[in-house]
């Protein structure tokens, strides 16, 4: 069953330019991105009456200050935080469907200097409680380490190799260089990739997304309202999945490798869209290993097919069969926990992606977080029904 009764559309997108130095406040970044999105939609920010601000750290910024800065006349629906990537877009649509607001802005703020996920160690004596007690006393408590553990096993079971995996960061870098809004603008070769230093072997530096400061915003409203706005509506065709990051600090159980498959099945059933009909593959790439694993987890390729599919890069390039993250992804446009993929999906559907524009895309699939053991989300953005 689709989660909403009505149909909901992306009508405006906007983002600040990614930086490595935090030279504005989070509130300033958010206001700039939300205003850009409103301008893109051709609406007065005062007419926005729902707002969802997301950060991945605590404390969150003052949403009321952002709403005031935007000049919102009334805040009917407000929410802090909530999941990664497409999932908060779905939650915003649900709130619209329930009549809680009429036009909602969703904004993700990234801040490189804010506290992030670190091992939970008592600073007084080093004690570690809860599930991390089996990991952190052995020197493990960062996401990149967990990714390395299941990434290595995945590659081993599937018979894939790093020269296949490398094409994800390499092609996404090519895409970033066609995107003036991307942080990384220098080319990456296979040798560059293979020579990049290990972070948590097998995870290399170039397998990790690039932390940046930025805000990324999009505006969602009902189909009826969207039809009267500046651009043709871009539809949220459906989404499924839980909020949260899945593999956390505990000890994950790794098999089966299709952990998210039930979520993907729900998505395909709700939307009536077959994975074969999907043009663009905007799989979550906080780490290149995750993007690799999402391909099979979403049923876009069969088990054992992902490595050969991406090898050489042609098929996933912007002019290939199934372009992957044409903006450069979290890996090269800059970390946005999947929000950047929504902006790019809207631009691609509208035909506004310039040099990197793909050929008449109808459907873009997006995923977020970890394909397994669980906790990931997925959704489809499209031209219409």
């Amino acid at each position, binding site marked *: 069953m689709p989660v909403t009764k009505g149909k909901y559309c992306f009508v405006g997108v906007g983002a600040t330019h990614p930086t490595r130095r935090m030279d504005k406040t989070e509130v300033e970044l958010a206001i700039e991105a939300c205003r850009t999105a409103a301008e893109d939609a051709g609406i007065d920010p005062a007419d926005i009456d729902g707002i969802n601000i997301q950060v991945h750290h605590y404390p969150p910024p003052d949403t009321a200050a952002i709403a005031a800065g935007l000049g919102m006349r009334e805040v009917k629906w407000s929410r802090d935080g909530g999941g990664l990537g497409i999932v908060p877009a779905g939650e915003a649509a649900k709130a619209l469907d329930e009549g809680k607001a009429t036009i909602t802005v969703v904004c993700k703020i990234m801040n490189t200097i804010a506290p992030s996920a670190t091992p939970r*160690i008592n600073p007084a004596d*080093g004690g570690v409680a809860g599930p991390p007690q*089996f990991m952190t*006393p052995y020197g493990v*408590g*960062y996401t990149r380490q967990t990714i390395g*553990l299941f990434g290595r*096993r995945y590659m*081993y079971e599937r018979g894939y190799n790093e020269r296949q995996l490398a094409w994800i960061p390499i092609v996404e870098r090519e895409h970033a260089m066609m995107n003036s809004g991307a942080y990384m603008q220098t080319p990456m070769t296979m040798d560059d990739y293979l020579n990049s230093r290990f972070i948590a072997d097998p995870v290399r530096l170039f397998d990790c997304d690039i932390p940046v400061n930025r805000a990324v915003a999009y505006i969602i409203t009902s189909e009826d309202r969207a039809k009267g706005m500046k651009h043709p509506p871009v539809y949220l065709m459906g989404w499924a999945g839980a909020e949260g990051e899945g593999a956390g600090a505990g000890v994950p159980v790794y098999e089966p490798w299709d952990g998210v498959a039930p979520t993907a099945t729900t998505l395909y059933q709700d939307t009536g869209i077959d994975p074969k009909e999907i043009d663009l593959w905007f799989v979550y790439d906080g780490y290149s290993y995750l993007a690799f694993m999402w391909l099979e987890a979403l049923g876009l390729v069969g088990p054992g097919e992902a490595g050969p599919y991406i090898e050489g890069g042609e098929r996933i390039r912007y002019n290939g069969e199934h372009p992957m993250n044409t903006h450069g992804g979290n890996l090269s446009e800059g970390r946005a926990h999947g929000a950047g993929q929504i902006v790019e999906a809207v631009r691609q559907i509208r035909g506004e992606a310039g040099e990197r524009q793909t050929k008449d895309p109808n459907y873009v699939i997006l995923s977020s977080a970890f394909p397994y053991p669980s906790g990931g989300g997925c959704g489809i953005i499209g031209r219409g029904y």
Partner: protein
Amino acid sequence: MTTPTPLPNPETRAGQEEMKRMGIVPWPIADDLTRPFWDAANRHELVIQRCTACGEFRHTPRADCLFCKSTDVEWVKLSGKGTVFTYIVDHRNEVPGFDGHYVFAFINPVEAPRTSVRLTGNILECDPDDVYIGMPVEVMYKELKPGVTLPEFRPAPEAKLRSKGQTP
């Protein structure tokens, strides 16, 4: 009167670095669920949970069985022999108490090869380049401080070590 020095904030990189400088070493706080495991480690024994309803092993400890949801459980002593399921070689050394390139692995014990069992540990007494998936290992014990002992692993005699010219 002197003001006590504030503790490092463990949620920041600076805090983690400060903990490193202070010589803080992370250690496991046993709780009701995990105490039998750590108590056994102090006796240099390796024990994990087994469901008495369906007979399946599980680890790390949890209240109910992954397979049948039963909460009836016994703790079973293992031989300490197993194989490497997967591993990383950490190069960043951000966790307080760790330096150099160290190996962390998930180990499948020979008694419970199912994936519902994940023994965790470092692979010690071993060149990180020698570790491979499937490598036979055996348990050893490292006392962190009085009353806190970590089960760890090292290559079993039959492991094939590249550094000795052997092919895994």
